[in-house]
């Protein structure tokens, strides 16, 4: 008997990175999984995993996605709001189009998915939102990204309070996870290699995170093991934010 046997799951943004790791982990734990992304079905996606092309920031598309969930699974047990994007700009540099794209995916997308999926979720359902350590301490030059993740973590608490006890809702705040997004963040440093070395030394765990680290916590939160966990934003960052950023050893 696997932990998620008989459960159904929808994971947004399952093309690559953290989303893909969560998709594969939930399936390995026994869940039936649907995932989505803006483009066509990725060639390397497991054959049992359902794929829908969907822009999470588009109201009609999310409604249609929820209908597909009902057709495929009946009820939904697990919703993982992972789809998101990152724009490396300060407020002054950010255009209206940047706002629409970033807040559309990271904030409105989470809202739309929750609004359309809560009514089709089973009692005992679990929503897992992907927040960020940037929600509570700013990463330089990522103004809207940071703010969008604070929105996600605030919404997480509201859903837990308004929709418990039927539905639990938690967020995971990843630290530096080695994905394309992290590479993009290092790329804007004056010396990307030095920035990477410095960042590594700020991790008590001695390494950056892997998408599988986040998937391991998502699987636990999705399972009935986490029945008493709701309304929380759990940080998974290899200890980075437990330490002060002012580290004399790195001067």
């Amino acid at each position, binding site marked *: 008997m696997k932990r998620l046997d008989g459960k159904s799951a929808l994971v947004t943004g399952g093309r690559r990175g953290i989303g893909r790791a969560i998709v594969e982990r939930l399936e390995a734990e026994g869940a039936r999984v649907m995932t989505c992304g803006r483009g066509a079905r990725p060639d390397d996606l497991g054959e049992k995993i359902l794929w829908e092309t969907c822009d999470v920031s588009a109201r009609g598309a999310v409604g249609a996605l929820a209908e597909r969930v009902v057709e495929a699974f009946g009820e939904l047990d697990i919703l993982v709001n992972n789809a998101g994007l990152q724009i490396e700009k300060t407020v002054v540099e950010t255009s209206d189009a940047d706002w629409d794209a970033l807040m559309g995916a990271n904030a409105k997308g989470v809202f739309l998915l929750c609004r359309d999926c809560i009514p089709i979720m089973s009692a005992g359902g679990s929503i897992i939102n992907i927040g960020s350590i940037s929600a509570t301490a700013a990463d330089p030059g990522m103004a809207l990204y940071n703010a969008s993740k604070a929105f996600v973590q605030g919404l*997480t*608490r509201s859903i*837990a*309070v308004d929709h*418990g*006890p039927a539905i*639990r809702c938690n967020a995971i705040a990843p630290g530096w996870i080695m994905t394309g997004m992290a590479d993009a963040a290092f790329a804007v440093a004056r010396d990307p290699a030095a920035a990477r070395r410095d960042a590594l030394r700020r*991790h*008590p*765990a*001695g390494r950056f*995170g*892997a998408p599988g*680290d986040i998937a*391991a*916590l998502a699987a*636990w939160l999705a399972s009935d*093991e*986490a*029945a*008493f*966990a*709701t*309304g*929380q934003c*759990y*940080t*998974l*960052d*290899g*200890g*980075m*934010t*437990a*330490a002060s950023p002012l580290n004399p050893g790195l001067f």
Partner: protein
Amino acid sequence: MSGMLAGKTAFVTGGSGGIGSAICTRFAREGARVVAADLSPAAETAQGVDFVDYDVTDEQACRQTFDTLGERWNSLDILVNAAGIEIEKTIEQTSLEEWNRIFAINVTGTFLTCKFALPLLRRSAGASVVNFGSYDGFIADPGLAAYCATKGAVHALTRAMACDHGPEGIRVNAVCPGYVNTPMLQSFFGDSGDIESLKQAVRDVHPVRSYGEPEDIANLVNWLASDEARYASGQLWIIDGGLSAQVQQMRL
């Protein structure tokens, strides 16, 4: 047995208490060899759990216990500091003796156990320390002043240890339970009224409409102890049925 902790060694202080014994039982079920350390044995001990007489406030006894443990085990993979007490008083009602006692158990006990366990933890291929904080380390319950202060100290110690010992392959986290059905919670309800109606009122204020059971906390401790949580360190893991996600609820 799902075997998440197969082959691991675990030492649990307060191992006879409400939450501590649930943790020991769970660890044994997951395949760990477990030592439950406490002042007296639990009424029922699960198979695979050995009891050791242990007083977290006694430096000499703590040192000796880990010396002896080192002869039996090559390394320690999991340390859980679950020993703790609660004093239901404001600071004005709290005597210095009571203040020193709760700090001796909740804070100094965690310090001493960690200090003497470190040599064995370093020999593990990947050690996990789980301290007991509390949601009371973030938000106060009335009439629990010294208790709240001890849990704040455990939270800060947890981060400091994660920072110092992470590079040695030791992860350090704290679990911060809310209301859990233990003798401690029963004592907190005390004589404030009819216990059944209090229980219902406590349930109603939780988004999950229930207080926790020791097994709910053991579920999280088990995850943090396992290699599943290999990237989790330096964090304070609140598990409270959503209680602290909401603001105070006015009765209007």
